[in-house]
């Protein structure tokens, strides 16, 4: 069915591409899960669990940076080398609050939503997608700030960016629910 749709497509090219990609991915997930003898819902639960575990790593990183910001260590030498240019800059605060603290809250939200999604709460997966989308955009802005505005990088911030990209990648890999894919 999917291959037929791809070959004899009469809709516009963009729509076809989206439908084909979606169809091919669904087909891949179905085959992969049957190969691994697991249901799609089980596969989804595993991916959400992976997101939750990765979010804990991000939470630890952001919590460490928050503590550094609160103790004033980000503005000194002898504490965190290389990071003062980034963490001591005006871009490291948003409305007077350290960006790291917002990051810690976001990672905790991701952990919470991913945990609930892994247990089958469908609404949690929607909140998770929204939160990760916002974090992804924020991460792009922070990377731009480091590269083009500050001309300095902080390894902890780069680690956090990698975590966000990994979470986004895992979420993209989550197959749509059977109810939605069947519709």
């Amino acid at each position, binding site marked *: 069915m999917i291959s037929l749709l791809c070959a004899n497509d009469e809709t516009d090219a963009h729509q076809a591409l989206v439908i084909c990609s979606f169809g091919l991915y669904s087909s891949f997930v179905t085959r992969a899960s049957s190969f691994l003898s697991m249901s799609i819902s089980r596969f989804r639960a595993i991916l959400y669990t992976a997101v939750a575990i990765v979010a*804990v790593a991000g*939470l*630890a990183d952001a*919590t460490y940076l928050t*503590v550094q910001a609160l*103790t004033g260590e980000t503005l*000194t*030498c002898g504490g965190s080398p290389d990071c*003062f240019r980034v963490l001591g800059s005006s871009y490291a605060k948003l409305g007077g609050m350290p960006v790291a603290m917002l990051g810690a809250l976001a990672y*905790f939200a991701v952990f919470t939503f991913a945990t609930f999604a892994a247990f089958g709460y469908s609404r949690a997966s929607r909140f998770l997608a929204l939160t990760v989308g916002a974090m992804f955009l924020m991460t792009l802005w922070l990377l731009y700030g480091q590269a083009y505005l500050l001309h300095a990088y902080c390894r902890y911030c780069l680690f956090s960016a990698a975590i966000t990209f990994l979470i986004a990648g895992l979420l993209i890999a989550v197959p749509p629910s059977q109810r939605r894919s069947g519709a």
Partner: protein
Amino acid sequence: MKRYLPFIIVVVVALATFGSATMLYRAKRPQVKNIPESQSVSARSDASAHIRGNPEAPVTLEEFGDFQCPPCGQFAGFAEELLREYDSRLRVVFRNFPLAAHEHAREAAVAAEAAGFQGKFWEMHDTLYREQSAWSKAPNARELFESYAGTLGLNMDQFNKDMDSEKARERVDSDHALGDSLGIKVTPTLFINKRPLESQEKNPEGLRAAINAALEEKSKSGA
């Protein structure tokens, strides 16, 4: 039980994060003591203290700094701004606290002291911070320090002799020992009238608020 499991997991992670963050905060929070009266600038009459601004100013902003530390360089510019802003009501004191992690910091501190013997401590202080990125990465920083001394019009024979003297090193070590005894670990560490600044005061607004509070306190105690 499965119904409550996600709630339990989330609560456990929240508590673990909060607990470890609190412990980390306590461990990292600077535990710096007040400068004792016997070590205050006013009590020391050996002229080794480096004071900028009105020597009789009611408020003293004391810095333990490292010439190779970029935040100290940023602070040096801000300190000048504060001196202009508060005029005769503020004096700034610099004490050496070269960190072991910075390869040329101690030699830079000695160069500043050597320039100080010829009355040009602050000129060398400003030059070292202005040129920080150049000498920090230089394999032989001493050559650059000598060139700065030449630019400042110092007697070069005397400068070189002072650079190698025990007297300049002793001054650096004396400041460092005082910093160690106060529990200083990072630079710049700042004091307002012998009281260390809290982490929330380590920003332009916080510093101004601390200076204003010290001025108010002085005017009350003087009244």
